[in-house]
């Protein structure tokens, strides 16, 4: 049983941060209920449920929250919940009658999580956007990418997941902790922009101390430093090198068979291109597998850059069972690992409305209301 057992979470189905946040909470044992819309006839792309990994450990209820019965069902669920998360544009939840004030009439302890890109306020609050837009405004995107070329979006890891879903989950649990003392819920305004900006904390310091050159690919951690970056190998694959400390750098050179006396000073930034060329030439002489074996169990801070399909097979990942296989589908295990009450994958993703009846019975929706909502089509069961 995960550490969040007993925590009841309502996730109004959305994109990006909210389903990821719901997965994090569900992985740790929270009872996450995804509120889906009713099945729509004009659905564009049918999403394959079994590969909807972010919806594992969740149940689904399908509600038309614009109908009065549907709203009444949602509010009965709210009365039972610790947390509600939504990812609408600001003001939409209020217009639907499911905003924080509406919910607090039914449960004053409810923590109301709001995931957006820009936040609930400000001139951009109601403007559309995606991960790349938010990380652009945080300054993070400008720092990522090769020298002399355009910035590169690091997938949607930074905005949707790191700065969005994770910060949302953190904020929700902070507010739940506080609500247990105060008996009052509050709004968690989790803007991806805020989260990514928080992730950039250290770089703001570097920038002000002059330790961050305002060019991509020219710094310690952005691929500028020859001892912190990726090198191609004989077989067209890559090795990742992170030998920042002098003692680790010495081990790196030893493994590469290079004499430090013959190389440029690594602390002289002007010499970095020359040093990089020297390392590139050596890495190209052997395959990734050769280098992996050469550096295995050393402190050179050298690792093979694995493709996603190779991850499960790596001996370390195998030993730690990094990936799980559930119903034949490979997926990351819940993280982090708690010693006494670890998270687990208890169930796969639900079909839309799969648990409508079960949840209405278990979450205290009055039988008369449940019947009315079913007969009027305000809720649907699949």
């Amino acid at each position, binding site marked *: 049983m995960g550490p969040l057992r007993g925590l009841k979470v309502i996730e109004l189905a959305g994109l990006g941060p909210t389903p990821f946040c719901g997965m994090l909470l569900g992985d740790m044992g929270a009872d996450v209920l995804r509120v889906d819309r009713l099945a729509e006839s004009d659905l564009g792309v049918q999403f394959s449920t079994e590969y909807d990994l972010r919806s594992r450990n969740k149940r689904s209820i399908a509600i038309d929250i614009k109908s009065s019965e549907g709203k009444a069902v949602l509010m009965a669920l709210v009365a039972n919940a610790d947390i509600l998360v939504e990812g609408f544009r600001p003001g939409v939840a209020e217009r639907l009658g499911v905003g924080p004030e509406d919910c607090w*009439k039914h449960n004053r302890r409810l923590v109301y999580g709001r995931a957006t890109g820009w936040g609930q306020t400000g001139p951009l609050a109601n403007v559309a956007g995606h991960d790349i837009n938010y990380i652009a405004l945080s300054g993070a995107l400008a720092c990522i990418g090769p020298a002399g070329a355009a910035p590169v979006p690091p997938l949607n890891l930074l905005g949707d997941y790191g700065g969005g879903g994770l910060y949302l989950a953190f904020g929700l649990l902070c507010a739940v902790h506080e609500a247990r003392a105060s*008996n009052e819920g509050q709004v968690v305004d989790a803007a991806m922009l805020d989260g990514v900006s928080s992730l950039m904390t250290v770089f703001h310091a570097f920038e002000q101390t002059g330790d961050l050159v305002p060019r991509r690919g020219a710094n310690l951690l952005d691929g500028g430093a020859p001892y912190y970056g990726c090198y191609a190998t004989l077989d067209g694959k890559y090795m990742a090198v992170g030998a920042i400390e002098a003692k680790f750098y010495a081990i790196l050179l030893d493994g590469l068979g290079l004499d430090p006396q013959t190389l440029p000073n690594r602390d002289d930034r002007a010499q970095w291109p020359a040093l990089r060329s020297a390392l590139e030439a050596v890495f190209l002489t052997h395959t990734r597998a050769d280098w992996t074996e050469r550096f295995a169990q050393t402190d050179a801070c050298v690792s093979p850059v694995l493709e996603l399909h190779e991850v499960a097979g790596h001996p370390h990942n195998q030993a730690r069972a990094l990936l799980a296989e559930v119903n034949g589908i490979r997926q990351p295990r819940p993280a982090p690992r708690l010693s006494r009450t670890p998270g687990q994958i208890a169930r796969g993703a639900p079909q839309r409305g799969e648990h409508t009846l079960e949840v209405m019975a278990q979450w205290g929706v009055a039988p008369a209301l449940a019947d009315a909502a079913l007969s009027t089509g305000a809720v649907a069961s699949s």
Partner: protein
Amino acid sequence: MKSKPLAGIRILELGAYISAPYAGSLLCALGAEVVKVEPPQGGDAFRRGLNEKSPYFIQYNAGKKSIAVNLKDPAGVTLIKSLLPRFDVVLENFRPGKMAALGLGADQCREINPRLIYASVSGFGDGGPMRDRPAYDSIGQSMGGLYSILNDEGVPRLTGTCMADLITAISAAMGILAALVGRELDPLREGVCMETSLLESVSLLTIDAMTQREELGASPTRQSRHPQGQNFCLKTASGESITVHLSSSQKFWEALVRSLDRYDLLENPAYATFHQRVVCHKNLTAILQDEFATRPFADLAALLAQADVPFAPVMDLQGLLHDPQMQWLGLLGSETGNTNIVCPPWRFAGVRPSRPDLPPRVGEHTAAIAYEVLTEDELNALTARQAVS
């Protein structure tokens, strides 16, 4: 605020007189926000037509809020239901079945708010042959056995205060606190229905007599416990009385007789052991009464204190008000110095929970509380049909 540990807890009290309101009052002094639901006409019957001026009403309701809601109007019941999600505890002392008939029974309320603790106080419990009988304090005292154990055999009398109501309220407060702690510890954070009654709660006061009944093989009465307690209540030469309680202690027995210069009693084999003194309790009472009758209260008090004998004056409540020990404890007195207000008997980190001395007027907080769940138009509509006032 260490002396207000329940700050943040909200209690909806649908109760009258003492058995529920005193429970609410204790929890209120501990920091809970207690909102009393009262009938619009006159409010809690304990106001006795004096609104916020009744001294008894003040004692048990100072610091609470009041909303006036007509529970005979379905719209009034609907308002209460819509408030339930905003409260932690419902505390009621209607007759069994009445709340359920209104649509506000434990199951009905806990369906709306599963985290709700529903505390129900009745005369005899929600079942059994006496379920539907009306009950006030004396009925609880009499039925619970207090009138037999507090009186001499064959001389039934009323007692001097409303022990059944008070102990029921204390017991209800204890049950509510346990349910609140239990809810915090429950992973699902579910509330519970907690029930108690006058008849159940009086057992907190009769438990020792019940134990003695088994030992005696008969029902104990007022004097049954005094021999084994080595209790004496003795009149002094100046008119005041003193209580002495020696228990089984040899040390206190010897200290008492030495303080009275009755060394002969120490040497008398009839009184040598505790068990002998239990048998001779009646004789001893007479001997000690003779001694006390020769000395004024002040001399005896000094002697007994010097000898470290457990004793106390037989205090009346006027005397208690001015007693230096009571003054050190600071038990009496509201935040504004009204000495009629009794504060709760605990200190947290050395600080006693304080109490204000003003109770609410009937419906004083109706609008403020109703606005938590109603719009102005909705409240106006309820007021117009006299569902609230």
